[in-house]
């Protein structure tokens, strides 16, 4: 379609555009403060100090932010994987009165943008006394309509014969679900784990609203406050951003096949 050299200029050029900002930020995060605005500094002027400073800082509980993000993301992901799968399975395979109504409700609420419930959810959670608590950051987010829908579609494709064989072997419905159906759902579960974890790790709007003390901040909320307060210390702030970014990039590089496949399938449905 294009002449070869021009084609490769575009291909490589855009890769520079996508990778460049990361590399530049990594580079800056190792610079000493006087060098921040210098375009290029020699290797011996780079330092690990910014990382030390940010992790060991007395001014803000950075390590705690990291821990909060991790804890919240793990709990929310686990909840979603278990509960969405159970519900998806029931909607696909267990006949019960009200099943269709429940499914239609789930489809309907998928159309409601999260911002609609911002105000009522805040009022509700403050009535529960859950503002600025782990309960507030996790419990309301343990299930997600889109995940339920996805699991249902997946379970519809599993042959009934496999379940029937399980029943013949004396397994209960619960046993069939955990021992036969769930192991078959590994690809769908992997996609859900990846996207739920990523979504939560990066989530900003809700944690920003629900956390009021520095100790309860998640990493994105902490990072935002850091940038505001320590405007000039870009090397510190970018070192902080690396704690947010690098773990995700590593996870992404390890699972990139599943990542990309997962997104392709979740996106199309």
């Amino acid at each position, binding site marked *: 379609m294009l002449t070869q050299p021009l084609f490769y200029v575009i291909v490589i050029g855009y890769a520079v555009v996508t*990778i460049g900002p990361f590399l530049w930020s990594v580079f800056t995060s190792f610079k000493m403060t006087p060098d921040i605005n210098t375009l290029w500094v020699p290797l011996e002027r780079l330092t690990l100090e910014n990382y030390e400073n940010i992790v060991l800082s007395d001014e803000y509980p950075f390590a705690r932010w990291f821990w909060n993000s991790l804890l919240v993301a793990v709990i929310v992901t686990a909840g979603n994987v278990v509960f969405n799968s159970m519900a998806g399975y*029931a909607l696909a395979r267990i006949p019960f009165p009200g099943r*269709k109504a429940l499914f239609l409700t789930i489809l309907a609420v998928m159309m409601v943008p999260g911002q609609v419930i*911002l105000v009522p959810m805040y009022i509700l959670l403050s009535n529960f006394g859950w503002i600025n608590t782990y309960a507030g950051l996790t419990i309301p987010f343990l299930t997600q309509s889109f995940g339920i829908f996805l699991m249902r579609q997946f379970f519809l494709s599993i042959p009934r014969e496999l379940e029937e064989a399980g029943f013949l072997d004396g397994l209960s419905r619960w046993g069939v679900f955990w021992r036969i159906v769930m192991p078959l759902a590994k690809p769908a579960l992997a996609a859900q784990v990846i996207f739920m974890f990523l979504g939560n790790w990066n989530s900003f709007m809700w944690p920003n609203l629900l956390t009021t003390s520095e100790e309860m901040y998640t990493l994105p909320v902490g990072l935002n406050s850091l940038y505001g307060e320590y405007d000039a210390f870009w090397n510190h702030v970018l070192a902080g951003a690396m704690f947010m970014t690098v773990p995700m990039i590593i996870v992404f590089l390890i699972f990139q096949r599943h990542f990309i496949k997962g997104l392709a399938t979740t996106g199309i449905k």
Partner: protein
Amino acid sequence: MGYLFTLPVIVSLAVFLIGPIFYAFFLSFQSFTFLNPEGAEFVGLDNYIQMFQDERFRRALLNTSIYSLGVVPVQVSIALMLALIVNSKIKGKTFFRVAYFLPTVTSTVAVSVMFLFLFKKDGLVNHFLALFGIPARSWFDDVTFALPSIMMMAVWSTVGQFMVIYLAGLQDIPDDLYEAAQIDGANRWQQFWHITLPMLKPTTFFIVVMSIIGTFQVFDQMYVISGGDGGPLDATLTVVLYLYNKAFKDFEMGYASAIAFFLFFVILILTLIQRKFFGEEMRM
């Protein structure tokens, strides 16, 4: 048995989603502040009427529309181009796929912080532009350039995800179509125009709608970059940012709920159009 499996979801949906949706609807007809719940009063459609007379809301809506109209076409065209590239027989295909997808993995907050650094007055972008004699400016503090700069950042950070959906679409096109076209003597351009583009029509439609929905809900970037207020001079104020500030800075929660329902209405229409198009997949 079915209830046992669906119980956690039913409880969670009822308490944390459906209940709040109805409560938000109720609030949108109230003059309500969280600080003084007893002072709540029914005001009918006043909040909705106020909305269209509110200059800052109209500004937020205009900004959001500009943002959406600017981001969507650019995003969709770049995504398609990148998908075609990583689907062709180039060397290092996996590397480019990963490279192009990388920004999608990163949080909007980390990306915003990185771009604030890159786009500041003595930042890398200005150093680069100086090579072409373009004067340095503080991009995100500039009334004219703040919104376009965020739009660029949005394209940068989300194109990868649409590229992947296009890639899936491209791989669903049967090879024999291209073989037949080749036999008929169609060149690469003709194949693209007469096979690839028409076969990708449903994918493109899906991506366009998803992109519009996403851009209408933009919040994180604006919040981080403007420090929460949508500045400079409301240049980066969007509908969701305004809603957030009305609710949690000015505590006008009834009014904020009306704005939320306006947003819901916009997104509902878009989703219904999309569902109509993809209706088959949603059937019981």
